[in-house]
């Protein structure tokens, strides 16, 4: 076969060009540190890398979300920690108030202490975060959850919206709790009862210590209204629900035995009732669950009751006893609600920690997978570079040698 001179040079150029192209590719790989210099080097790998880097960046963003959630929950936890501390303080004062040896003036002092504690509690309930958003107002970040009305009482004006944060791809967690469930309602599952006596009672009846005697009793979980009438006063018990509708009864009238100091309520309950109620007196035994437990109202009423003089007035003293007992029960329910929220905060925080560990694990997985797809194995590539370099050198050397073989050059 005839090899034309043109073809000979062309072949030489082609061979050198091919070697150079491959050398350049390896050089580009090494200088960029990337296995895929362009997506065409590995189309599938390039597409996978794009999806992986999204997963990686989403994972990183979720970690940031967890940081935000942890901050929010941490702030709430701090505030609730102060609030529960305050509750302990309030309960200590309440126990002092229950001490029968106090004078009217002592009680007056206690009243203003309670008033102060209420103001402190209100400040905590209206606490804000770094952005000036109220912690406990639900969705309404810029509206204070609790507002002091013209009449002086504190009312709830937030909502029960949960401030959800995406802490994992499939998990959203509430980074807030609304003030209503902390300061105004019983914890879910709270089965306790609250006793109260009407402020207008003229007798000396003091009610306390509601007890469920038969947990499967028909009226356990219902409210009871105890009314006295006649002289000697007989009592009638009516079982009602939260709306006040009669569920059972009325039972009675039944004569009251002051010596028993105990009243059996129909359907599985009994309550301590001492002293001597008179005609028109009224007592209530209510579940904490579903009851308006506005802590500020409770403290207001307590402070107001403590400021009333009772010396020489057994009926007023009994009424004060009833208010103190009722306040204690209500504050217990509030305290219980706070602790429940705090423990749920703890659960959320520990879930975040757990997800953090998982997120870090995933990040390592994504990073190594991305690296496998994109990064260059420098050892192999350096070897290849050397190999290609020798190839190019050999090709150019060979070309030069053969090129010298022209007869025109030999027979010069």
């Amino acid at each position, binding site marked *: 076969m005839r090899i034309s001179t043109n073809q000979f040079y062309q072949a030489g150029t082609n061979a050198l060009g091919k070697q150079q192209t491959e050398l350049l590719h390896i050089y580009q790989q090494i200088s960029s540190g990337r296995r895929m210099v362009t997506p065409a080097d590995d189309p599938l790998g390039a597409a996978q890398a794009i999806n992986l880097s*999204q997963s990686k960046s989403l994972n990183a963003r979720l970690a940031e979300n967890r940081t935000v959630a942890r901050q929010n929950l941490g702030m709430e936890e701090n505030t609730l920690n102060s609030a529960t501390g305050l509750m302990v303080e309030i309960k200590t004062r309440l126990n002092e108030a229950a001490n029968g040896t106090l004078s009217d003036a002592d009680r007056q002092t206690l009243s203003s202490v309670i008033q102060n504690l209420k103001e402190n509690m209100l400040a905590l309930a209206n606490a804000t975060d770094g952005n000036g958003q109220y912690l406990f107002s639900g969705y309404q970040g810029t509206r204070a959850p609790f507002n002091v009305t013209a009449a002086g009482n504190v009312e709830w004006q937030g909502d029960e919206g949960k401030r959800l944060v995406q802490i994992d791809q499939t998990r959203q967690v509430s980074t807030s709790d609304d003030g209503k469930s902390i300061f105004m309602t019983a914890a879910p599952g709270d089965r306790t009862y609250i006793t109260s006596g009407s402020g207008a009672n003229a007798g000396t009846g003091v009610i306390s210590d509601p007890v469920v005697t038969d947990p499967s009793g028909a009226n356990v979980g219902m409210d009871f209204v105890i009314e006295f009438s006649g002289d000697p006063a007989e009592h009638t018990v009516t079982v009602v629900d939260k709306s006040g509708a009669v569920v059972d009864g009325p039972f009675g009238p039944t004569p009251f035995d002051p010596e028993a100091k105990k009243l059996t309520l129909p359907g599985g309950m009994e309550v301590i009732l001492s002293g001597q109620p008179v005609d028109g007196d009224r007592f209530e035994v209510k579940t904490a669950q579903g009851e308006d437990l506005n802590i500020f109202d409770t403290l207001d009423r307590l402070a107001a009751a403590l400021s009333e003089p009772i010396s020489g007035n057994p009926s007023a003293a009994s009424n004060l006893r009833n208010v103190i007992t009722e306040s204690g029960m209500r504050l217990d329910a509030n305290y219980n609600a706070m602790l429940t929220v705090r423990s749920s905060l703890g659960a959320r925080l520990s879930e975040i920690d757990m997800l953090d560990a998982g997120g870090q694990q995933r990040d390592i997985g994504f990073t190594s997978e991305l690296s496998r797809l994109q990064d260059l194995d420098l050892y192999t590539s350096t070897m290849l570079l050397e190999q290609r370099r020798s190839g190019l050198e050999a090709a150019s050397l060979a070309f030069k040698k053969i090129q010298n073989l022209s007869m025109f050059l030999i027979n010069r």
Partner: protein
Amino acid sequence: MNAARARLITAGHNINNAGTPGYSRQSVIVSTAGATASGQGFFGRGVQVDTVRRAYNNFLANQFVSAQSKGAMLASFGNQVSQVNNLIADNTVGISPAIQKFFDGVQAVASTPGDPAARQELLGRTQALVGQFNEMNTFLNNQRNDVNGQVQTIVTQINSHVQRVAELNKQIEIAKGSTGQVPNDLLDQRDQEVADLNMLAKVNVLEQNGQYTLTIGNGQLLVSGSDTFPLTCGPSDSDPRNMAVYVNVPAGKGFAKVELDETSIKGGSLGGLITFRKNSLDEVQRQLGQLATGMALAINEVQAQGVDLNGQAGTPIFKIGQPDVVANARNAGSGTLTASINLDGASQLRASDYDIRFDGTNYQVTRQPDGEQVYFGTTLNNAQIDGMTVTLGGAPSAGDSWKLMPSRDTAGQLEMMISSPDKFAAASPAGGSANGENMLAIAALQTSKTLGGGNMSFNEAYSQMVNKVAVHTQQNGAEAKAQAALIEQTYSAHQAVSGVNLDEEYVNLDRFQEQYVAASKLIEVSATLFDVLMGIRA
């Protein structure tokens, strides 16, 4: 001596033209000059030169030319597609990270809806996302302009080669007529012109009586004898943003321009450019538009379900590009096509174009490039087609056609419609500055399979596009490699016949020089003999 001289001249011609493109080795064809009859036998009269012939094998030459033509096509396709490939090479810049950053910003607002800094940052990231879509689309548009410009240049080049072939046809005919011999060098030149032409576009050659007739496409004439039918360039009837090639077709007494079907242009740089424009550029731009529009629609849809920081219902974040409708330039009727993208059409939207035809009775809508008929009926009024509402009004004539491109330019038309960070509807309808529920719903779009009938997430749509470009580039690279090997093979086969080997010519020079010396010796001997005879006489 004449024969030896002719051989020496030819060997010299070969040596001189060893590097001339398209040159075929020539050799002198000689024969014995017959013999003088005598009683003692036939005495040879020596040697005579019959002709000079070029070493040329039509079949091998054609193989080489068409291998080169395909090689040129792959090279020009490769030049274009690798530009797109390079554009998307770095996955730390461009659209994919812009999508990621946007959703990062969404998450940040969802986590702290009341934080003005987070909202401001999201606003900036939204702008950056829109910017990336616009920028990539501009790049692709520029590339289309570049391709269009090259098509124009190539058409001019083709015409100049066509002109040369016609001239050579004429010169060859004249040369043959005056000498009766074949003008080898002119033939070489003409073959080289045809080879050059094939590098630009695949051209078919028909040889008749030594004259070349050239055709392009499906047999449209370029050259016949010394007549030329030059190509022209102009906006395509069906899609004016593309430069199309028009052929001159005899019609009545004059000529008519007819658009050359894109699919019939094969081979050469022109074939590569048009294939790239049709198969890669259109496709990428459509996918980009689908992603831009689909994403904007889906986000707007969720945005509308929430309320902003001022308690107002969410207004659209993005302004969505509208479908492009082109009525064929040759439509006779007055029908007008209008199409709009449905606000809830994110998942139905496809990266497709649509051909709409009216046959006088029925409207037929065909989706391209899959060729599926998506609508057929006697009216086209508020028809629901792939996430669009399509209506044809006016009075179309039978045979009229339209092209509907819902996603071609929409990545470039994407705009931001909100300018205040308050306008992100982060809250669920309950409102509140600490309410980020609607933002969480937008954030969920990052990983949900929203596009393509619920089959891909936004990022997956983008990665699919990258994959497609990469596959096109990779395939082209592999084909070009194989084609280079084929070109080398056909070149060596062709050169084995037609090529000049300088060593061979060197040997020939030596041989013919010796012959020349021998022949001149013969003359010298004859002269001496003659002188001797003359001497005797004197």
